């Protein structure tokens, strides 16, 4: 079968269409899939070249696009960074074609997490360039040659406990396991946190890491006196240690949130845009 026949061109276009779809992970099927697709793309471009000028334009556009996609998949970089409160990084988790994890890749600068806003925007500090950058769902930013964008909220794994002390007037504070907070005139420390509290042989333990039945062991200090209190979220307002004229309540748990951002460097992006435009002009110019 000749390469330039309509049937051959249509068949190649269909195969490339399947490979281009993000819903069919062709590149992850076999390490050689990328090479086969590159070869098919070359054949497709060659099959489009004929004497007619519009057709040549389509071939030129397809060649530019194929070249750009190939170059960006080989020389480009793609990955993610996940940053929570107080965290910073000089690297990102790189992923290769087909979503294969390639390990850590230097970012070229030091980024520190500053703030995660309710609208999903993240403020980062570029410490090497001494500037702050704001990455929102509607606006990516360039940092040392990389485009950073698409911020998403993800649980960071940590949990803060919202504890209330009441003696007619209620005061609240949030703290992590091991932290101490001043609530009214008391120093309250979370000694141990049980996300999924249960008892076995009269010993508390957690059945899982899921916060299904959160409970905590608290140490309460006022001057030289100290108490230990066990609070369960499912039983609010009943925990009053003997000798302490206050009620302790585990009001709720607040999961810590981190921001996950996409990092990418695509040096051939302009070539890809040019290829799409040229191909569109070529198709529009073709015989109707």
């Amino acid at each position, binding site marked *: 079968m000749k390469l330039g026949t*309509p*049937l051959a*061109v*249509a*068949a190649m*276009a*269909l195969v*490339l*269409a*399947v490979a*281009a*779809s*993000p*819903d069919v992970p062709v590149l992850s099927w076999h390490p050689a899939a990328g090479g086969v697709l590159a070869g098919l793309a070359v054949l497709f471009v060659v099959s489009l070249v004929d004497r007619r000028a519009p057709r040549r334009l389509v071939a030129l556009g397809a060649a530019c696009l194929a070249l750009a*996609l190939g170059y*960006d998949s080989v020389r480009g970089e*793609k990955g993610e960074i996940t940053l929570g409160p107080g965290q910073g990084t000089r690297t990102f988790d790189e992923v290769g074609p087909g979503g294969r994890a390639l390990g850590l890749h230097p970012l070229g600068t030091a980024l520190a997490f500053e703030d995660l806003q309710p609208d999903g925007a993240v403020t980062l500090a570029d410490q090497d360039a001494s500037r702050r950058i704001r990455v929102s*769902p*509607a*606006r*990516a*930013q360039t940092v040392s040659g*990389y*485009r*950073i*964008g*698409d911020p998403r909220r993800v649980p960071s794994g940590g949990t803060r406990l919202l504890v209330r002390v009441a003696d007619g007037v209620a005061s609240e504070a949030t703290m992590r396991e091991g932290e101490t907070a001043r609530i009214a005139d008391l120093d309250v420390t979370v000694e141990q946190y049980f996300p999924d509290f249960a008892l076995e042989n009269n010993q508390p333990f957690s059945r899982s890491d899921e916060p299904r039945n959160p409970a905590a062991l608290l140490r309460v200090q006022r001057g030289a006196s100290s108490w230990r209190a066990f609070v369960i979220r499912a039983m609010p307002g009943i925990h009053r240690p003997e000798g302490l004229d206050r009620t302790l309540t585990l009001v709720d748990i607040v999961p810590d949130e981190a921001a996950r951002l*996409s*990092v*990418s460097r*695509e040096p051939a*992006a302009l070539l*890809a*845009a040019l290829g*799409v*435009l040229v*191909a*569109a002009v070529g*198709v*529009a110019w*073709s015989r*109707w």
Partner: protein
Amino acid sequence: MSALGLTAVVCGLTLLAASVVAATAAADGRLERRRLARFIALAAAAPLLLLLSRPGAQSFVGFAVAAALAGPQPLALALAASAAVLAGVIPTAGVASVAQLLAGVTGALAAHAVGRSVWSHLAAEREPAGRDAAWTASAAGAGACGLVLAVGGPGVLRWDYVALPGGASAHAWDAGLVLALTLLSSLAGALLLGADALAATETSSVSPLARMLGRRALLLAAGLAFIAAFLVAAVAGWIDGLLRPQAMDVAGLVAAVGLIGCAVPALLAERVCGDAFEEQQEATVLSRLVVVLALAAMFAGGIEGWLRAGTYLTPLTQRLLSAALVGFAASETTRLRTLARVLTLGAVGWALVR
């Protein structure tokens, strides 16, 4: 549901009516009926422009308005009805996107290309004594079956529909029952008409009884799908706003109604009027235009992706590239053109709803 959402649903139902009128006009060839269909479609499309302010609805508004503007083509108007309903009930979250809008317009033109291709096929086959609209009606019934299965999933086979309003699963046996009956009815219609068309040799129909039963089964399926759409919307809580999957379910059922609604008039009339050559020429031009528009949408999507996500290779641009390639394949081939155009419509539709 907001007033704007309700307006879109009403516009969607009006487009559905326009689709049936257009199908009737195509069957009897009356020009005034065709003009009426065009007028109804344009009247229904105009208020939809108000929904362009909703980021999540832009692509579907683009689809519905472009389908109405491009002419009274029954299939395109049926799918436009589904898109209009979807624009009204889908959550409005997201950011405005030119790429989505262009993708919607591309989808509408792809639907026009498929519709014109099918009508050209039907009109051509009326000239010699041969087959009739039973094949397309059977395909519409099969399409409706697929849509009902996509909406209800395997639960439909157990007479059940599971909705997830607010993240909690809710079983709706009434919706499940109607969905299962829709499935059975459309399957019966598709099989009866398909078998009759397959058995036909020189006469147009081997068994008038099979044809009559198939036609009635399809009409029953259309009615049941219409009821199912309301039941699914009710169980998913459309007063408070539907989640995206439930909005898709409702739109899928409206599309099923539209598919059957635009296929049955030709079957009832036993003929399709029109110039087969002209319809095919227009379908060819539209197919080429679909590729150009898909590439333009991809270009816009690449720029938006670069500005917003930091990469031009977003899932939307990849799907649009895929749709452009399928469309290019469809515009290249001269054999199986209708099937290739259906594939293009599917690829663009997939990019829109994902």
